[in-house]
């Protein structure tokens, strides 16, 4: 029986909400609880429920630059959601489970590397925390994240944009019609991680059939080539035909079939705000699919049967699929200098809007084009909260597999920024040694977080 079970952490956070009437509130997983409990699925021998646990501050610091510090951006609920994902991952890596579902709140896929506040209902990125945790604690290198939320997983994309070992695939409703307005096929990753980011925008109103065309003809073949050691599904459920925020027409069964085909190690709940008409059914169907059970009897009350697709839109999707397959197949043959230029640093300016907290952020991100490693990253970030002076911080991130030169240069960059008064905080995130530094300019004080050693 070993290795046959599906692990579940169900953490509905019944005492946590963004605000009383916000879609991300206490009630969100209430009906899912009722459905799962009433079905008796937790009594099935193939499903094992785990008690949640908290992620550590250090687990967060390994991924995010929280301004001014981790504790000011996360609540305990965030730590529990992220910790639950790492808890299940531990059990999967240790062979106790074949796969798992972190059915948790709050979600995280809009949270970027730098965190000034909440955007898209997210503060910290549960999947990204999981990836860095898997690398640090279990030595897993190649990881794929497939984001099935109706919104582009822009936070996850941002965090792994220059990471060649993390494949990020997101399909979502076309960004011209929905928050956050990004996720187009030309966003393919930085110079060191070209085509490790794949975005598939879908025209609104698309149903299961075309969704599975994308899965079969693009997502699964790419995954097969990439050969990830670990697959994570950012399981957003707002592509459902009843979702109030999205305009797609996927069904619970469509989601379950996708789960079966993708066969992820771990699904982590993201969005999905049709709390009565979709979530109870989609969550149940995904859980059954993970456990290898028949999900064909799961049917939402308003199930419309098969829906005719608009041929013009289907053709559009087919063209995108073809274009991206082409990109993927030629990824090692393209001239990166032509795309990214020939400088030592590749840099991009970003404007980031925090829709929940109304923060405007301006970023200058620079990544060193290094022949020996993915290169260190610096971010100069200025956030305007709409009151008082904007806060400005400088962040340096050293990748897990950094070379000696990049590491030395990165520490120099940190030291240099410490001397510049325009930065209120200066951060250094050294993933290669699992060390994090933060410097408070006003107090002229440095914090260090070294975290637990491997194996502790």
């Amino acid at each position: 029986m070993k290795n046959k079970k599906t692990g579940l952490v169900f953490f509905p956070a019944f005492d946590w909400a963004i605000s009383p009437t916000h879609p991300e509130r206490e009630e969100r997983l209430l009906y899912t609880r009722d459905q799962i409990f009433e079905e008796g699925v937790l009594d099935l021998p193939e499903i094992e429920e785990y008690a949640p646990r908290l992620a550590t501050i250090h687990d967060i610091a390994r991924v995010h630059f929280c301004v001014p510090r981790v504790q000011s951006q996360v609540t305990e609920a965030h730590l529990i959601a992220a910790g639950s994902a790492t808890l299940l991952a531990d059990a999967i890596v240790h062979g106790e489970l074949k796969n798992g579902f972190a059915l948790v709140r709050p979600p995280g896929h809009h949270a970027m590397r730098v965190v000034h506040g909440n955007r898209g209902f997210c503060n910290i990125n549960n999947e990204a925390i999981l990836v860095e945790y898997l690398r640090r604690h279990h030595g897993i290198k190649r990881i794929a994240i497939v984001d099935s939320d109706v919104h582009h997983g822009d936070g996850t994309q941002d965090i792994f944009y220059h990471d060649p070992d993390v494949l990020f695939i997101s399909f979502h409703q076309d960004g011209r019609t929905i928050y956050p307005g990004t996720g187009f096929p030309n966003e393919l990753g930085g110079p060191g991680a070209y085509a490790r980011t794949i975005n598939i925008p879908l025209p609104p109103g698309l149903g299961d059939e075309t969704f599975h065309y994308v899965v079969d003809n693009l997502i699964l073949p790419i995954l097969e080539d990439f050969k990830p050691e670990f697959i994570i599904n950012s399981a957003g459920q707002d592509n459902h035909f009843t979702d109030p925020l999205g305009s797609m027409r996927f069904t619970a069964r469509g989601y379950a079939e996708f789960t079966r085909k993708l066969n992820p190690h771990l699904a982590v709940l993201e969005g999905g705000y049709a709390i009565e008409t979709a979530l109870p059914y989609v969550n149940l169907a995904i859980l059954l699919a993970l456990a290898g059970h028949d999900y064909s009897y799961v049917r939402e009350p308003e199930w419309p049967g098969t829906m005719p697709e608009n041929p013009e839109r289907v053709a559009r999707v087919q063209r995108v699929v073809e274009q991206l397959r082409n990109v993927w197949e030629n990824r090692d043959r393209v001239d990166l200098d032509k795309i990214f230029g020939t400088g030592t640093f590749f840099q991009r300016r970003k404007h980031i809007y925090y829709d929940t907290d109304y923060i405007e952020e301006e970023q200058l991100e620079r990544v060193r084009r290094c022949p020996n490693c993915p290169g260190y990253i610096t971010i100069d970030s200025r956030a305007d909260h709409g009151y008082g002076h904007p806060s400005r911080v400088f962040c340096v991130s050293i990748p897990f597999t950094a070379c000696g030169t990049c590491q030395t240069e990165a520490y120099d960059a940190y030291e240099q920024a410490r001397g510049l008064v325009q930065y209120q905080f200066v951060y250094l995130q050294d993933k290669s040694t699992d060390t994090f530094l933060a410097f408070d300019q006003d107090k002229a004080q440095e914090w260090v977080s070294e975290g637990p050693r491997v194996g502790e």
Partner: protein
Amino acid sequence: MYIGIDVGGTCTDAVLLDRGLVRAMAKVPTREDLLSSLLEALDEIMKGVEGELVERVVFSTTVITNLIAEKKYDPVGLILMPGPGLSPSLYRFPTDTHIIQGAIDYRGREIIPLRLTEVDQAAAELAARGYRKVAVVGKFSCRNHRHEKEVAARVLWNYPDWHVELGHQVAGQLNFPRRVVSTYLTCATREKYQFFVRSVQEAISQRGIKGAIFILKADGGTLPLESSLEVPVETIFSGPAASTLGVQALTPPGETAVVDIGGTTTDLALILSGQPLLASRGARVDDMLTHVRALAVKSVPVGGDSVVERVGKDIIIYSERLGAPYCLGGPLPTPTDALRVLGLTRLGDADRAREAMQMLGAPLGLSVAEVASRVTTRVIETITREIEAMFSRWEQEPAYRVWEVLQKKKVRPSTVVGVGGGAAGFVSQIAARLGCYPVIPPYAPVANAIGAAVARPTLQVTLRADTEQGFYIILEEGYQGKITERSFNEENALELAKEWLCKRAARHGLEDCVEGLEVTRREVFNMVRDWVTVGRLIDVTVQTRRGILYHVGAGGTSE
């Protein structure tokens, strides 16, 4: 004066308590005819005591457990309305199962209507196969029982003499498969249990006892015998609950591991902050999962009479019993023989005990004392491991709120309390391994009967209100009522639940225990649609105080 009687598998134990002091106790063998053992035990403790002085009699019994284990009941057919969800092929119920159309959702709304022709067909097929008893259960019937009632009415219209049992009347909690099993077992045992209850009432009144008669439930609460007719299955597994309550009555409050070492099994239970720990889900009955609330009890298949054998270079303790220990004339060595050799018990013949150890140890070149200590160590290790596992399992219970996750703390027992025949020899070493104080309370051999005698009557009422749809449900009664006030809130819900509890108490003749009500669950969810609060879901559970009436042996001071 209170009487407690525990009708166990091998012995029937009884005590007579007089204001917290044990006045008489008895231990008689349990015979096939439970009633005669019950009466014999009763007569023994009542020597010279007028029946009229007895205020209450509480007993725990295996009668339902045995009925189910031996399948001594009439066949029961199932008519189910599972609606969409899990594949029906995952349900494996041990009888003829008919699945018909019709579905209710989690808020009690009809999503698929019934088709009465399917009801007729299912009933006709059951009739053709000789069934006269049927359990009717729908998914989410605890949120709306309309379909169940319609199906039952239709079945009874066709077959007026059938016995039909409805899911929502048996179990109000969520979990459809467990509700099916609970309803099935209730339907199966009701008639036989009724017969049993009548004969007990008859026998006790013959002895001139006019006090109230109660029966212990698996969750450690008692019910008036008459009321237990409604919920026969809840009287299952009351034995372990009895000894746990006995320990609670005989020891000071705290974190305690209860170790009841019997002949073939050892039952473990936990008392945390002075209250026995309830299992988070319903009990497993005859390998089926039910909704029966029970104390968290772990039965470990090792006891004083377990068979010990040498296999190769190893000494193994088996989970079976093949008669008495060797020192008491049995056929094979047992842990009791090991205890005898080590001087930890005075049971049986010392020479025969040494002989038993000799048989085991000679081929391995081990001395009699070495073998004996190896055997006892094995037993102690097994039990210690299980106690640790129980505490970890308790810590691993899922939590659905932030504060629940944060308040979880590591709790470990401070005392290990031993009851039952084999306790004396093992408990001090088990306690030592766990870093606890060992306790063998006075009257340990009849702790179970004491537990029964002092168990409190329990009643609970769970109210669920849906203010958007304007109705409320009393889960335990299967009642659905309308909410008329527009401003119905949490406080109103609580008041209403208390009213229902008082009504329920009056019906069971338990008016006294409504004092000191406890609110065990209180949940309110605002239902927001399009950024506007359209209603509230309110869940409230109130219950009478759980636990024991008083501690025993300390002069009978009240709690």
